[in-house]
């Protein structure tokens, strides 16, 4: 009993079990397949949003599960996402000013 609870807490601290990781990898692979299919199949108006959403899902999945951010202390998420959102914010704004410029 003692041992089980120890391993349990271990699992939450360090993320998933091997099976869990493989499952995540399969989902990622499937999404990648879907992404690549946009090259062959015409998605029409959905093309751009679909690709972007899939990209974000993959990104978040790797960060949350493979990099354990989901299970780790919030400080880590905080540090990383600050950088990420700052980057998205300033660079999108800068690119936007090129549009107004035209």
């Amino acid at each position, binding site marked *: 009993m003692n041992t089980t609870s120890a391993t349990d807490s271990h699992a939450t601290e360090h993320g998933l079990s091997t099976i869990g990781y493989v499952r995540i990898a399969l989902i990622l692979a499937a999404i990648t397949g879907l992404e690549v299919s946009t090259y062959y199949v015409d998605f029409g108006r959905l093309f751009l949003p679909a690709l972007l959403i899939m990209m974000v899902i993959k990104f978040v999945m790797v960060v949350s599960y493979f990099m354990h951010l989901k299970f780790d202390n919030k*400080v880590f998420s905080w540090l990383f996402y*600050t*950088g990420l959102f*700052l980057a998205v*914010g*300033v660079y999108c*704004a*800068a690119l*936007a*000013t*090129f549009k*107004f*410029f035209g």
Partner: protein
Amino acid sequence: MAIIERPVSLEVQPLIVVAPATPSSAMGAVKRPVVTKGWRQWVFTVDHKKLGLMYMATAMFFFLVGGIEAVLIRLQLALPDGKILNADLYNQMFTMHATTMVFLFVMPMAAGFANYFIPLQIGARDVAFPRINAFGFWALLFGGLFINLSWFLGGAADGGWFMYAPNSGPIFSPSHGVDFWTFGLQIAGIASLTGAINLIVTVLNMRAPGMKLMRMPIFTWMILVVQFLLAFAVPVITVALFLLSFQRNFGATFFDVAAGADPLLWQHLFWIFGHPEVYILILPSFGIISEVLPVFSRKPLFGYPFVVFSGAAIGFVGWGVWAHHMFASGLGPVSVAVFSISTMAIAVPTGVKIVNWTLTLWGGKLWFTTAMKFSIGLIVLFTIGGLSGVTHAVAPSDTQQTDTYYIVAHFHYVLFGGAVLGLFSGFYYWWPKMFGKMLNEKLGTWNFWFMVVGMNLTFGPMHILGLQGQPRRMYQWTENRAGEGFFNLGFWNLIASIGSLVLVVGVFLFLVNIYITARNGKVAPLDPWGARSLEWMTSNPPKEHNFDSIPTVHHLDEFFHRKYAEDANGQMQQVATAEQVLKQLEDNADAHIHMPSPSYWPIILAFGLPVTCLGLIYSIPLAIFGGLIILMGTFGWALEPSTAPDSDFDPPSSGDTSKDVVHVG
């Protein structure tokens, strides 16, 4: 330099001894350095206080370099048709002046203060990654020297400190100056980035027990904000600098309009970095005076949480205003309007700070030491600079002012009147802490007045010059276009030049003061100012391990609260002297203290950087050689435990519970 002499300390006989490490091999081949005497104790040190002093000495050196450049500029412009510099040299002079002052003086000086005082203020014995700390210093030093090497190798950079295209391109800048500038800043950038990561982790993670975030001294807070700005701003300029070196060395055309490029790309990247950079320059000084003002007003900082949050707010909003540097570049009306408004918004948190400082002074028992004078000087002069800054936020008025001396006036009021005076306040305030001796107050007062008068004489007239239309970066002016009467450009140019000489005297007095103090300065008492924060709870200069036992913190201004307590009438009464407070820590000294061990690798690794860059400019084999140095340094580093193993200590320490293996710094 006097900065690295340590006068005898006053410390009460230490009750504990830091076990000295004896050399053992780190990589199987090389023994690790453990020398505590001579030059090697500096070159291989990882001690945050030594590194702090080295940062400061380096910064001081570059301050003099940048100052000489400034004086040459002013001598050239003192009289019509100046002949001291030719146009090309003039361009190099103002570019290098600004680069030196910004990247090699103010930033490293702030880094020096931060290194020295952050661990002390949060009650730690060193930073989180001592070797990275040493690496950062050496990279900064080598980067700075590297940039200035260009003076001797065909001419320095000459495109202005923001190096706009096409001035940065080979047509307008054929020498290698810009290459040296690009690579040198890249190296200094690595130093800033590693330093930022180190200090942030230090502040987050190494605080003494009870030192909650909202109990941290305000200097620590401001430095924390600055390090976040650095951490996120430096990579942006890294990108810009990489693009520029690819353009200059490998045939890319990122900023070449003829090839269809958009020159605004550089401007955006530069200023996305550049605006946070101006807060990187000013916030450390804000932190310093927020320490100094309460101490010499004999009351706590007014509205501590407001000062903290306005500092954080400045740091945050500072990311959304960069394009105010580009109003005249044809950004388009929407962008101009947006950035104009965001810029005005940022004046609010800045104003909050000024109000808080003023209210700290209000009703206090003011003690006009030199440190206090510099702090009050900052409030006044920075406010003037801040007001002219608001006039640039109004885009139509900025269109008139941009690229005139009005801008030069503005940023020197904030940089010299703000950042530099704050740093000087810090020198006078913390000198006894760092060296155990008091800087001479009388000379300090002269130092202060010469600098303040000199600074106003130099930069005040530039407002007039600028509004009259004298362009910035103009290498000569002629009598026949100088105008009449009060607005005669010649008169004001002369005044500005005389002012710069007054400034020189002011700075010179400071150097004299250092010299006199080192020779026969007054030995500092333990608590010369009646200070409030933890860095004063150790000897002057601090012991190598800072604190004999780590204090537990119960209050903001912990040191003050250990000395004073409220009596029955709610009056603060002294209950203990500083000596008693210190004695208490010493009596509870920790049995074993392991300090991080010196290392060869930081300096070796850092040295690889300029070698590589020199190779990239002149010959690829040299670059490969530099790369090998870097590789070797990295491996040596990775294989070396950051603390010598227990068996290395003399006498071998008993491996008690205090050991903790996780430290890959």
